[in-house]
């Protein structure tokens, strides 16, 4: 009751009215002043950024994060340039000062493309290990050339990435889109075997070597490819199969591990050969020949690659080519031919074909 009386008295007095007038005047002054300051700051910022915008070299800045794929984007057809492209990308990713940046992969100008390069690109975009994951954001474009763009869309690449715009995923009944896994995925190997059966018109028994080969390669990836744990990528393999509509089915299998020469068992002299004078190919050929190369050191292991070699000798598979580290080995029925890769591939790529006409009756 007392406070109400005080309020009534104060409200009616001349002093109160004067106080109220002065307070409102003060508030108006402060509001006006604040508005002037805000306007001044905004004008100053616009001028500042206008100046910065004029002097900032956007093109030069962008160049640092933009990676242009070579015209022939393929390990099989252009191993040196393709390896150099990925080496450049990996070296950028591993530098701590680049963390947090966004990378743009420009493949718009490529003229020729094979699946192996797309697989490697997918591995880098999707499977960076914990140290590098979430440190980068990737974006990119699609090839401009219609034939290459069609192949790109049909490869299954879009299943692994987010995309903008209309549905770009297309399917081709003559290929088995890119599949990926960490361990031995029996269902994917089965799918591969069924694909061969349907395209070649053979029985499951006649195509069982494809199933066996797939499991052996998947298993090698899991066991050896990431043995040291120093790889910047998570353990994963990628596979793809394509039927040419006539008599050939081509297969690509890739892992982004450390590569066969880096993981096989070496003797004392080989360990000393740090300059790699004798090249990496001999490690691949000796592993295929079944020499005691298994990194596990157990004599009952290391039989997967020799079995694949046997499939070549039996002419079940043709044109087997293995690119790994600095080695490029082509496996023939009874011999090998090898080349050297100047920019070593961090991983292993297997490429082989089967001739349908030779498949019937094979056991």
């Amino acid at each position: 009751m007392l406070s109400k009386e005080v309020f009534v008295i104060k409200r009616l007095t001349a002093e109160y009215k004067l106080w109220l007038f002065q307070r409102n005047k003060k508030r108006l002054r402060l509001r006006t002043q604040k508005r002037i300051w805000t306007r001044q700051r905004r004008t100053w910022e616009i001028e500042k950024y206008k100046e910065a915008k004029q002097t900032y070299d956007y093109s030069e800045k962008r160049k640092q994060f933009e990676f242009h794929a070579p015209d022939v984007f393929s390990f099989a057809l252009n191993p040196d340039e393709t390896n150099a492209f990925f080496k450049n990308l990996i070296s950028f990713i591993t530098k701590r000062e680049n963390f947090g940046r966004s990378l743009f992969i420009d493949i718009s100008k490529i003229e020729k493309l094979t699946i192996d390069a797309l697989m490697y690109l997918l591995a880098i975009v999707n499977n960076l290990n914990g140290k590098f994951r979430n440190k980068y954001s990737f974006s990119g474009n699609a090839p401009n050339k219609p034939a290459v763009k069609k192949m790109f869309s049909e490869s299954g690449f879009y299943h692994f990435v987010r995309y903008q715009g209309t549905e770009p995923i297309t399917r081709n009944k003559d290929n088995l889109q890119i599949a990926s896994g960490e361990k031995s995925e029996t269902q994917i190997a089965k799918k591969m075997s069924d694909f061969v059966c349907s395209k070649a018109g053979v029985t499951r028994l006649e195509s069982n070597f494809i199933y066996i080969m797939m499991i052996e390669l998947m298993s090698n990836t899991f066991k050896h490819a990431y043995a040291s744990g120093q790889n910047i990528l998570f353990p994963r393999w990628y596979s793809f199969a394509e039927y040419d509509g006539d008599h050939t089915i081509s297969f690509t299998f890739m892992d982004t591990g450390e590569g066969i020469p880096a993981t096989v068992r070496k003797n004392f002299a080989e360990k000393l050969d740090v300059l790699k004078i004798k090249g990496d190919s001999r490690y691949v050929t000796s592993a295929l020949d079944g020499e005691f190369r298994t990194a596990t050191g157990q004599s009952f292991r290391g039989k997967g690659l020799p079995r694949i070699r046997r499939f070549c000798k039996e002419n079940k598979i043709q044109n087997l080519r293995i690119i790994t580290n600095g080695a490029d080995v082509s496996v023939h029925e009874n011999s090998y031919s090898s080349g050297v890769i100047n920019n070593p591939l961090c991983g292993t790529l297997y490429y082989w074909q089967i001739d349908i006409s030779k498949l019937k009756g094979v056991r």
Partner: protein
Amino acid sequence: MIIRIATDFTETPGARYRNEGDFSGEEFRESILEPKFLEAKNKGEQLTIDLDGGYGYPTSFLEEAFGGLARKHGADSVSATLVFVSRDEPSLVNEIQEYITSQK
């Protein structure tokens, strides 16, 4: 006694160890082969392994299943108890026997 791998275990055999994926040689040996092998051995019977009907047998699967059994129970005992049947791929039988005898 008989084990038909395609129906009793899987049509799609996998790699060597359990940690390498489904239907591994180790899984087959521990869950099916070894118990039946011991049962057959105790009864003095032979255990027939029917290999037909699958998608194919990876080397590591066969080695771990049968070579692994020979490493544990002795090659002679395994050779004496197991009998292999493969009408689809007869060469498999020799291959498996090599894995067993190499453990001697």
